[in-house]
């Protein structure tokens, strides 16, 4: 009998040995079964990777995390007929609570399909949204996005429909769609998973965006740190061209659209939209002053939509199911679902797509199942390296842009990084400043110089030098950075620092023992 066995081809699955597992499975010689190894995308249940799935009459049955050494044993115990009982057997994939309790819209295909198979994509509702969009007028398309309530998933949460309207209304001979795939926030990987598991959703979203605003050219600005995503995107784009979903007269319509992928070059600030545009133009990735808005004067000074991977990849779903059905999810002004990302010291890490409104605690303790180390958790950083550190006492807060703003926290791109009680929050605060030293684009003084002073001041506090004076100095330095920086790099670097000071003051009180001596590790900053 032919058995279909799925082994994900995704950076994270590969990073823990998925290729070796796939190769070993393909070479198995089992009497009554012949194994058909299929390379799917990942489901995003990353703590279980490599997650091997076997197709059975009841549905796909999961085993994980599987190593090469486990395979003989698994096959002996009846894995190929979906038998349970082996310690790595997880039952039906769709019944794993971490997955079952999610509300997957943007990620509905992740791990189910073969990422670059356009047939799989179409068999799972692919291009339905596009077909509908092409039957509407550009203004109707923009209105559909407005009605969905979609806000940018890159971090700033700006309403996507309003951005598109500005570009649609602008008169120009050329307009652009730029996809921000720079995903610089530590603790986040949703863009990466999206691009590697379901690249056609992004492509479809970009085509719809282009049609809605009148742009015929799209760029994906991808971080250089994602080599596997680069391969997948290039392959998907070339297949889409071959099938006439990109290029001239898309899907038989009168609309032309093309996409090019460009690589970044290891610069965090290039995730900021105007720095990104400079970088695409071949310049230093320095932030531009606004106005002019990129929507009016963006890439090569033309009206440009800059949207995050997730914002664009959600567009096909909105068009396929209708704006209202998307807007039914969520709370307040945060409509739809958000792909949260659980990382750091958690037992169950991965992608959790849910309607806005879930609490930090539910994410960390229910989905995440507590710490990986078994020690008590002490802090969670939300929203990347510029995000606030929250103590457990604040974890009842709901994941909603406005609710988080009330406690000076940000949702950002949806990353949640948990730390156990061995973390030294003084060290984390220092790192936040150090990161700003390394990554500042150098345009404004509070960010460029303030961050260097920040590191020095934290070092002095931790060395017990004029403690109170230096704490006061750090506070005033933080407010100068918050108030005097052009972009969120300098403007939000103080968030992790101030929250560490506020909630974990005792960590700044440690007198350094010799084994913990601070070694100045200031990495090279930009020249």
């Amino acid at each position: 009998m032919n058995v279909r066995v799925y082994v994900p081809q995704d950076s994270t699955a590969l990073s823990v040995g998925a290729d070796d597992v796939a190769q070993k499975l393909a070479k198995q010689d089992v009497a009554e079964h012949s194994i058909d190894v299929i390379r799917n995308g990942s489901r995003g249940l990353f703590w279980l990777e490599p997650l091997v799935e076997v197709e059975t009459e009841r549905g796909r049955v999961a085993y994980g995390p599987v190593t090469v050494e486990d395979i003989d044993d698994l096959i002996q115990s009846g894995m190929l007929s979906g038998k349970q009982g082996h310690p790595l057997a997880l039952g039906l994939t769709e019944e794993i609570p971490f997955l079952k309790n999610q509300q997957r819209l943007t990620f509905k295909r992740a791990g189910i399909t073969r990422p670059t198979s356009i047939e799989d994509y179409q068999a799972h509702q692919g291009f339905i949204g596009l077909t509908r969009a092409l039957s509407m007028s550009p203004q109707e398309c923009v209105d559909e996005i407005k009605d969905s309530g979609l806000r940018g998933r890159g971090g700033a949460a700006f309403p996507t429909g309003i951005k598109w309207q500005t570009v649609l209304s602008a008169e120009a001979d050329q307009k652009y769609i730029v996809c921000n795939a720079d995903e610089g926030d530590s603790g986040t990987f949703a863009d990466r998973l999206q691009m590697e598991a379901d690249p056609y959703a992004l492509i479809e979203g970009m085509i719809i965006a282009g049609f809605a605003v009148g742009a015929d050219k799209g760029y994906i600005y991808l971080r250089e740190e994602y080599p596997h995503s680069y391969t997948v995107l290039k392959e998907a784009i070339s297949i889409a061209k071959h099938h006439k979903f990109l290029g001239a007269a898309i899907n038989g319509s009168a609309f032309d659209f093309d996409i090019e992928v460009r690589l970044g070059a290891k610069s965090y600030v290039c995730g900021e939209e105007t720095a990104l545009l400079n970088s695409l133009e071949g310049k230093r990735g320095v932030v531009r002053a606004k106005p002019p808005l990129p929507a009016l004067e963006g890439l090569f000074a033309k009206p440009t939509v800059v949207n995050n991977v997730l914002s664009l990849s959600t567009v096909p779903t909105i068009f396929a199911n209708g704006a209202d059905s998307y807007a039914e999810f969520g709370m307040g002004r945060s409509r739809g679902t958000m792909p949260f990302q659980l990382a750091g010291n958690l037992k169950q890490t991965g992608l959790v797509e849910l309607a806005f409104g879930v609490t930090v605690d539910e994410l960390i303790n229910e989905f995440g199942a507590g710490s990986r180390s078994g020690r008590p958790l002490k802090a969670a950083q939300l929203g990347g390296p510029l995000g606030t550190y929250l103590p457990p006492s604040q974890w009842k807060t709901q994941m909603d842009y406005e609710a988080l703003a009330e406690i000076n926290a940000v949702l950002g791109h949806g990353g949640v990084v948990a730390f156990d009680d061995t973390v030294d929050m003084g060290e984390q605060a220092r790192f936040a400043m150090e990161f700003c030293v390394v990554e500042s684009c150098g345009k404004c003084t509070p960010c460029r110089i303030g961050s260097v002073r920040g590191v020095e001041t934290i070092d002095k506090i931790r060395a017990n030098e004029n403690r109170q004076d230096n704490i006061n100095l750090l506070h005033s330095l933080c407010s100068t950075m918050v108030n005097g920086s052009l972009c969120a790099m300098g403007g939000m670097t103080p968030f992790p620092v101030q929250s560490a000071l506020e909630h974990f003051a005792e960590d700044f009180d440690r007198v350094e023992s010799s084994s913990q001596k601070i070694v100045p590790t200031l990495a090279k900053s930009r020249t």
Partner: protein
Amino acid sequence: MQTETENVEMVVVDAVVAHQHLAGPLLPILHQIQSELRHIPGSALNYIAKALNLSRAEVHGVVSYYHSFTTKPHGKTVIEVCRAESCQAVGGRKIEQRFKDALGLDFGETSSDGNVTLESVYCLGNCACSPSVRVGENIYGRITESGVNAIVDKAISQLAKSKELNQ
């Protein structure tokens, strides 16, 4: 036999020719040169500047801005250790130190035989299986302190293998 200078010239010309038609071609050109020569030689700047109608200073400004481009040659293998928060949360700082010790290098340094460069990186998108490290096009996750030497050995032995193939 080609001289070193001729080789550099050829790579630079190829990179420019391959990308000159693009809108905003400078980063793609620099990526190709960096990947083939493992740095951007000073001698390339004039040629690129002229071809793209830029000043040499502008090209230099771009090269010096981005961490991916180096003016000194990188090693044949680059090991990039993630220093960011998710990796820190599961022992990343110790892993950083292990790599430094195993290679006898600090971040940004290249071994004296020109084989290996150690670099830092701020997130590989592999945070759900932190700590993470990248070697060339491969990413490794869930790295343990005792696993560091194996990664370093593998990187070096692959280098030796590719050398044999080239001979």
